[in-house]
């Protein structure tokens, strides 16, 4: 791999998915892209990278962008965001949303554990809130991940990470050596491909946004643009959830942290009044 190859790859990734490739990521590039190089008939990853510069084959570019995403996730990751939803968000919306419908968006859902955790959490809370319904849309840039999410098929290792056994028994069936989430949970989540750099407003008005462990891969400018666009989509009394290592502080005042509620943010109405409708980061129609 020449420095020029890596530089070109870094620019491509930043433009396509916002990913900032840190310094000295040769090993990461090698391990993530070797399968694609093999599949596409290149002698090695260096060969693949050179062709990215010279051939601009969209299919290969897509595969490369997808392969370079980090998809680490698990059921009820960090636990608190799901407990908070149940104990702090549901009671508020039970009063303010007469229809009972709450629109939730998981903005980088990876292989589906996050939206399915929300669906299972709601199922458990149903007895307490019989009229409430979560309308969950889960999106990601990775088609590979979305396929798996939609199939709802998990390995034994994956169903043991974070998922209490009673919930597993209730919501999964064993299919050979894998575990498949129930049709009821699959129907509770709509999966769709979406790039956070694009115009997101097609999703409409949202009550809750989960945007966890994805902004960490972006630079400050991209974080800001994504968050500010989310602020225009979130209901004025809605909630934003970020990952445990993430914050809005120092990035934008479109949101402010909720005191005592780790990872939860609300709209900062004063700042939002002056916020111009934000534009997508990438030109419409770009692949």
């Amino acid at each position, binding site marked *: 791999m020449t420095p020029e190859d890596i530089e070109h790859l870094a620019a491509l990734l930043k433009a396509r998915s916002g990913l900032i490739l840190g310094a000295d990521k040769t090993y990461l590039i090698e391990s993530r892209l070797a399968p694609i190089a093999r599949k596409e008939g290149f002698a090695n990853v260096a060969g693949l990278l050179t062709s990215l510069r010279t051939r601009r084959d969209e299919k290969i570019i897509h595969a490369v962008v997808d392969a370079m995403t980090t998809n680490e996730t698990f059921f009820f990751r960090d636990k608190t965001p799901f407990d908070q939803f149940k104990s702090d968000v549901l009671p508020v919306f039970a009063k303010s949303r007469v229809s009972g419908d709450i629109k939730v968006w998981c903005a980088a859902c990876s292989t589906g554990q996050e939206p399915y955790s929300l669906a299972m959490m709601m199922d458990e809370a149903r007895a307490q809130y019989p009229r409430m319904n979560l309308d969950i849309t889960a999106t990601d840039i990775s088609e590979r991940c979305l396929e798996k999410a939609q199939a709802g098929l998990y390995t034994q290792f994956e169903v043991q*990470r974070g998922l209490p056994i009673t919930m597993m028994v209730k919501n999964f069936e064993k299919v050979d050596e894998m575990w498949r989430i129930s049709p009821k949970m699959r129907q509770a989540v709509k999966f769709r491909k979406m790039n956070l750099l694009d115009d997101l407003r097609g999703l409409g008005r949202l009550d809750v946004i989960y945007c966890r462990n994805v902004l960490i891969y972006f630079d400050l400018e991209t974080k800001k643009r994504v968050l500010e666009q989310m602020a225009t989509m979130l209901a004025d009394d809605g909630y934003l959830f970020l990952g445990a290592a993430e914050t809005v502080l120092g990035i934008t005042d479109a949101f402010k942290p909720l005191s005592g509620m780790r990872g939860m943010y609300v709209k900062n109405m004063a700042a939002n009044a002056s916020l111009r409708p934000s534009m997508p980061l990438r030109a419409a129609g770009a692949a």
Partner: protein
Amino acid sequence: MKTCLVVDDSRVIRKVARRILENLQFEVLEAADGQEALDACKAAMPNAVLLDWNMPVMDGITFLKHLRKEQGGKDPIVVFCTTENDLSHITEALTEGASEYIMKPFDGDILEAKFQEVGLI
């Protein structure tokens, strides 16, 4: 310091579990089958039991049924840890009073997460 009784007929598994549990600040006791485990519990009830299913002399589920009839036998939190990974085994374990269920193979992350789930850590 909380105590955990590790019940498994494999010495290797007991050793692996011991290392993980000691790192989680547990005092670890070992038993190689259900009968040994029951004797250990009668002598002193542990806070937790990590329990294999298939073992010679007395299997895990029989041990659990006996344990729950002992004086103070409802106290220990029992977590199964076994290669039996079908829903009927899991359901039976939960019905008999197990709190969590680990399907082998397992690692430190899974064990830690499951112990957290049941409030042991």
